[in-house]
């Protein structure tokens, strides 16, 4: 049934996306800080 599939999409899409986006952003921050450290090291 289409309605229950949309509800499932709202719930599971929402849950996965919310937690996933925070994980992605934290990893991204980690990569960015590594890169800026590397750049500093290269500059020195």
């Amino acid at each position, binding site marked *: 049934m289409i*309605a*229950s599939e949309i509800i499932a999409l709202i*719930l599971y899409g*929402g*849950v996965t996306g*919310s937690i996933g986006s925070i994980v992605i*952003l934290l990893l*991204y*921050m980690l990569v960015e800080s590594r890169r*800026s450290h590397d750049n500093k090291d290269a500059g020195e």
Partner: protein
Amino acid sequence: MIDIVLTLIVLTILMVVWTILGIIGAKWVKSMSDYFLAGQRMSIALLTITILAAWESHYTVLAGGEAGYRYGLVGPIWYAVAVGGALIVLAVFAARIKQATPSGTISFPQFLRYRFSNAKVGNVNLFEQFTAWEILIIVTLSAASSTLGGAYVLQALTGMNFDISLLIAGIFYIVYSIYGGLYAVALVDVMQLGMIAILLPIVALYVSSSLGGIEGITTGLMKNAPELLGLTSTSVTWMYTFFLSLLGGTLAAPFLWQMIYASRNPRHAQISLVLSGIFFMPVALVCGFIGLAGRATGLNITPSAASPQVVANVLPPSLGLVYLLGFVAAAWSTFAANVNGNAAILMANVIAPYFLKEKSESKNLLVSRIVALIFGLLTIVIAKYAPGILWLLMFSYALRTPPVIPALIGLYTRRLGSWGAFTAALLGFIGSAIIYLYNSFYGTIAAWVIPIVVSLVFIIIGGEK
């Protein structure tokens, strides 16, 4: 239900802990924000997290829940698309905004003053006064929705009478704003982001399993609100009103302009805004789902309080208390920022230049606190008579729209002069405010159409250089 005395004790302890954390964090946050904002060193990830932390607030929890409860399946989806989409639309203008402003500009009102500085009477810069008063009105409306939200949460979880909940929520908010909320809003924002993006999905999963999973919720909706199961269950005018007011409010958000200025380059600002828009959407879906689940229960629920009422009815009291603490903490920081921001604007534009000619720090602080107290009390009165949280938020967003239209047009043509822009913003603001009180749809349309038409007329006939 949670015991009322226990709730009050826990809230008081939370307020003290929050204030101490704020004082400890204030120095660190101040030096961090000076470093990043003044130095324009915000990286993509940091910018995105900062925007999300400010955007995912207690408003999202309540307004998303209300959208799901009122409009069924369409509610959460449209809420997610409208708010996320508005951030993505701002990305289109981000490069222009960054290029068109001198370095050192840190806010949208400052940009207006700089770009349209010729609108003056004597020594008074009209845009400066206009934006100051406009912000006072808009921010008081937003703060009132925080007070109303706090009242709904307290009422839902403890079973208290609404008026008493409103009074208690208001008093707690005001005391925190005056004593604790002067510190470290940014730090609290990040903690709030963690709560909403991680705790709320867990609450949503718990709610779903308590109501028999997706199957149980679908059956509940078929029984209690079958009309909300389709994707055409809501009126098109609601969708337009919602999208236009959110778009205007987002384009005019001083905080987002500040983030654009703080970015390293225009491309970073654009990518961060698009990422924030995309990452906001799932959180909005989760908030909307909780309201939708509330509709499936068939309980008699106040739409604006759908989220806390579902939690109160479905979650065990201990988890309900965690939700309450998370919610109140999130709402406190926003409320304190709003009320103290208003006090600062009134101090800088009216009280200090005209009434407080002698400069004394202790006197200034006392007057600021009195002004914050008055604004706080005002929010209780507005919250008492407002139709709902979504209404208050959308009204305040619609009212933000008029000044941003001439500002955006002014990014692309020099023919729009100071007086044209000022007239467009002022007429748009007054016109849309009056119309909105009678009809929200036409009010929102007016907030866009009046400034566009007036700006175009001035461009065609005037062409101020």
